[in-house]
């Protein structure tokens, strides 16, 4: 096919699964990172039996710390360990917190280009086995030439920096947001919205024997604003960022199945989301929390949409203040129901490179329940000053539903 006749193909998010997320040093302390990925890949195949495994053209798996059980080109090793045909290749990819998102957009680009018809893309981070910053060796020029502020390498410090820049985004607002995140996740669990996309994982413990992880370990559903107010601020004396209004240190893996829409139809696979646009942008490294703003603006521009067209927003909650900054920029209320309807990383956890697909799972589930919504986004802030946003279209969208719906007032205003 010559370039002049090449046509891009539409990419569909068919399905996404994840392991329950664990606390670093918790239920996965003796479980390997690659085994977490393998569980996700096999679950995708079980859930989508009409997909012949040999049709999978690529397995892209992200990890921030690509060493040990997250090393050795984990996309390829996980494919082999999962029992995929040896003809299926794989790669490892890294963009820190946006690892899985980058795996999805990269693989999706390959589908659009026509390089293959189906891919598995996901991510893993076992922060218990691979603490943040393990083995890093920053070039001394960063500091000697003041290429970045010294605070840029410590994510908590970048969050404190955001509070400095936006003084009206107070700790109280951050704590209130965080408590709401816990409550929303608890409700989503109670409503059975989270469990369908979890793959149970056998957990190994020499002390207590095998167990089975079937639910997330990090959530604290009893969290109150009052309780959060008493937490210490580890990054600064009398600062604003606490363990309660930030995501924790977590273990977990995710994986999604993507195809072009023609292949989906051929194999009888039902798209849960359609990819419309994506963008990654860079910002000041010491202000990495604002990354989603510029990334979202650019992605919307590419999609020919505005923020008003977006009915559902899944934004990663590395820190509550970083979500607030995003909402503040776009004039969205802290408690807008369009945002993180099932709660976010503050409650469920944030195993760095895996979170991108977790956001997509949440968005896909909400699309099903909201045929009135046509577009949604998933967005993350990324270390060293980046943001990533993907714009998704809801295949369940029907204009009739939009008219009939009794949607919350805020939402209707936003859509108006």
């Amino acid at each position: 096919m010559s370039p002049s006749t090449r046509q891009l193909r539409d990419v569909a998010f068919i399905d996404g699964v994840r392991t329950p997320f664990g606390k670093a040093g918790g239920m996965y302390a003796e479980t390997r990172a690659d085994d977490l990925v393998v569980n996700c890949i096999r679950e995708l195949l079980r859930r989508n039996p009409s997909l012949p495994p040999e049709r999978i053209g690529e397995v892209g798996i992200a990890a921030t710390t690509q060493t040990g059980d997250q090393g050795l080109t984990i996309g390829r090793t996980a494919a082999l360990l999962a029992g995929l045909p040896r003809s299926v290749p794989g790669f490892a990819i890294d963009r820190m917190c946006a690892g899985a998102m980058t795996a999805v957009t990269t693989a999706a680009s390959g589908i659009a280009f026509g390089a293959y018809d189906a891919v598995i893309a996901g991510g893993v981070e076992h922060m218990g086995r691979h603490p943040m910053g393990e083995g890093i060796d920053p070039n001394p020029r960063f500091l000697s030439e003041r290429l970045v502020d010294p605070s840029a390498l410590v994510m908590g410090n970048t969050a404190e920096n955001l509070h400095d820049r936006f003084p009206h985004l107070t700790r109280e607002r951050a704590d209130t947001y965080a408590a709401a995140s816990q409550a929303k996740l608890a409700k989503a669990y109670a409503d059975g919205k989270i469990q369908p996309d979890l793959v149970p994982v056998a957990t190994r413990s020499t002390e207590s024997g095998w167990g089975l992880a079937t639910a997330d370990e990090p959530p604290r559903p009893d969290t109150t604003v009052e309780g959060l107010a008493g937490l210490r601020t580890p990054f600064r004396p009398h600062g604003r960022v606490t363990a309660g209004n930030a995501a924790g240190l977590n273990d977990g893996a995710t994986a999604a199945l993507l195809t072009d829409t023609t292949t989906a139809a051929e194999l009888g696979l039902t798209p849960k989301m359609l990819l419309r646009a994506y963008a990654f942008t860079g910002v000041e490294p010491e202000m990495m929390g604002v990354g989603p703003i510029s990334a979202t603006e650019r992605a919307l521009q590419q999609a020919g949409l505005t923020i008003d067209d977006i009915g559902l927003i899944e934004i990663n909650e590395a820190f509550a203040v970083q979500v607030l900054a995003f909402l503040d920029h776009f004039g969205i209320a802290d408690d807008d129901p369009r945002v993180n309807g099932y709660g976010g990383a503050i409650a469920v956890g944030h195993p760095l490179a895996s979170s991108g697909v977790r956001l997509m799972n949440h968005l896909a589930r909400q699309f099903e329940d909201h045929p009135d919504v046509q577009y949604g986004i998933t967005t993350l802030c990324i270390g060293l000053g980046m943001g990533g946003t993907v714009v998704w279209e809801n295949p369940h969208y029907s204009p009739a539903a939009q008219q009939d719906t009794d949607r919350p007032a805020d939402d209707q205003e936003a859509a108006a």
Partner: protein
Amino acid sequence: MTTADTFPTFPDEVVSHAHVTFVDLPLGAGKAALITVDNGFDHKKPNTLGPTTLRGLERAIDTAYAEPGVVAVAITGKPFILAAGADLKGMAMIADHGQAVEVARLGHQVFGKLADGPVPTFGLINGLALGGGLEIALNCTYRTVSKAANGLGLPEVFLGLIPGWGGAWQVPNIAGPDTAVTVMVENPLNQNRMLNGPKLAELGLADVALDAADFIEQSLAWVAKVVRGDITVERAPIDRSESAWEAAVARGRAIADARVHGAAPAPYRALELISAARTSSREEGYAAEDQALADLVMSEELRAGLYAFDLVQRRAKRPAGAPDKDLARPVAKVGIVGAGLMASQLALLFARRLEVPVVMTDLDDERVNRGVGYVHAEVDKLLSKRRIGPDQANRIKALVTGSTDKSVFADADFVIEAVFEQMDIKKQVLGELESIVSSECILATNTSSLSVTEMASVLKVPGRLVGFHFFNPVAVLPLLEIIRGEQTDDATLATAFAAAKSLKKSAVLVKDAPAFVVNRLLLRLTAEILSAVDQGTPLDVADRALLKLGLPMSPFALLQLVGPAVVLHVLESLNAAFPDRFPVSDNLRRLVEAGKPGVWSWDEEGQPYLDDDTAALLEHGDDPLTDDGVRERVLTALAEEIRLMLDESVVAEAQDIDLCMILGAGYPFHLGGITPYLDRSGVAEKTTGRRFLPPGVASLPSP
């Protein structure tokens, strides 16, 4: 008082803990208890089951059943291992029948709880599961098995026991008597053949085989589906008619007779239990297992079997007297002098196991081509049986080359000669080799009876020569006698042991003495049988007399396998060394001169008979021995010869004699090789005035 309270612990028991966790089953099926058996070590030290472990498992099962709301109990092991079976060291310490019964009952008491619980139980066979390890799962209501599991089976009969923690009753009742015979009798007696996961499921002993990648997860998902009723487990119906059942048992008896000739009790006790399991209740079946297990635990055959097992498991891997392995030199190219059948077998073995170039030489191109051709043909056979892949076949073939010019040995690190068994020829070959090879090159001789020390005398550096005595067929028999000549140096010896290990052979260090170990004893035995014949004992009486011991083949079958000419050749060399004890039978000479392949001819049904031609060759005296007389004569001779060998320090200990006879001559476990039997039958003491091994080492402890 319960059994558990009264039973003493095994000394030094490595306790496998039974951890209990409670998990939410998938699909909302409810809460399950998951028990993990784990001794806290990695997979190289498998879980074993002793009394303390069993009591811990019992507590775990009780805890699981006591938990409110539990809908299922699943039990599995640490990664790659369920359990390797009973703690054999502890078994060997049991001193009386009452204790033995208690051990059996304790196992039934604990495992029986899995068979008789308030909720369904599930054995998740995640890996190695032998004997009692597999019986844990067999007592459960249902079983899953990992498709990657290896080392599954009930090897008790191989050692001299029966599956006595529920296996002997459960297997025929789960999967039918024929499978029970296969798993409990045929496989153990067939070099202790094991099963893998798919095979276990195929036999009906596991209800489903699942992929290894997420075996625990998918097993629990399967548990959930069974609990919910989504899956109904169906097993193949068992024909419980007496005729079908007893036909299977009869098949087992034929197998046992062919293997042990009634000499070992375990397979027959196993068959009795299988037979009774057709009509007996579980309680009756388990009670019968208690008695059978206790009887066998207190049998000499088991004690000899445990001793033999320890020899092949441990002593064979750490040869007595081997020098520091760090002294071994790397072997990157092997030379073989000769291209005959033995040399060709060696070439294949070296190429396959060492994966280095192997070059064979012989006198002319025809011989060389035949040798290399043999290797290539054998490689093709391995390929057609899928024992190796095409790339590996290409690799092995390319490694083996031939030449008529010994200069190809110039860069070899290890050259072994396999030329005709004659001292002058060997000396000439070795002298010539030394002028070609490098100063570091090890020289080895595959002699079966000649003196290594004398051969080395022609060498400028006699320390570089070592004896490397393989057994025919080379690919099958695991023994390698490594002979240290008087001047063999440690580096040469260490290299020989390292090579043996790479070749996957079990090496025993032997002094340079006539015919070394296995041939010396087999020839002594043969000489005694021939003498008995010469003096008038009927051929069939002489040939049959030793079968009662359960030896792998009769003396004349062995004679035919080795070939009368070779036997005569080795016998003559032994006769030269020890004329009194190794007479050369005139009847044997006549057989060789007449070119006979052996004593017996074989009819169309494979039965041996004496043809008239051979009968005319043989001369008999008029002083025949009875069956018992022949046996006593042979055993007395063996006891005498072994005592002499130990006094001459041919090997380090009696254990090495037994190891050689087990691995090189196929002597059975229930004899412990041979010295435990000579001890327990009283022959050793009567003949030599003393035992070979102290009581309790390979026998029941003294009362």
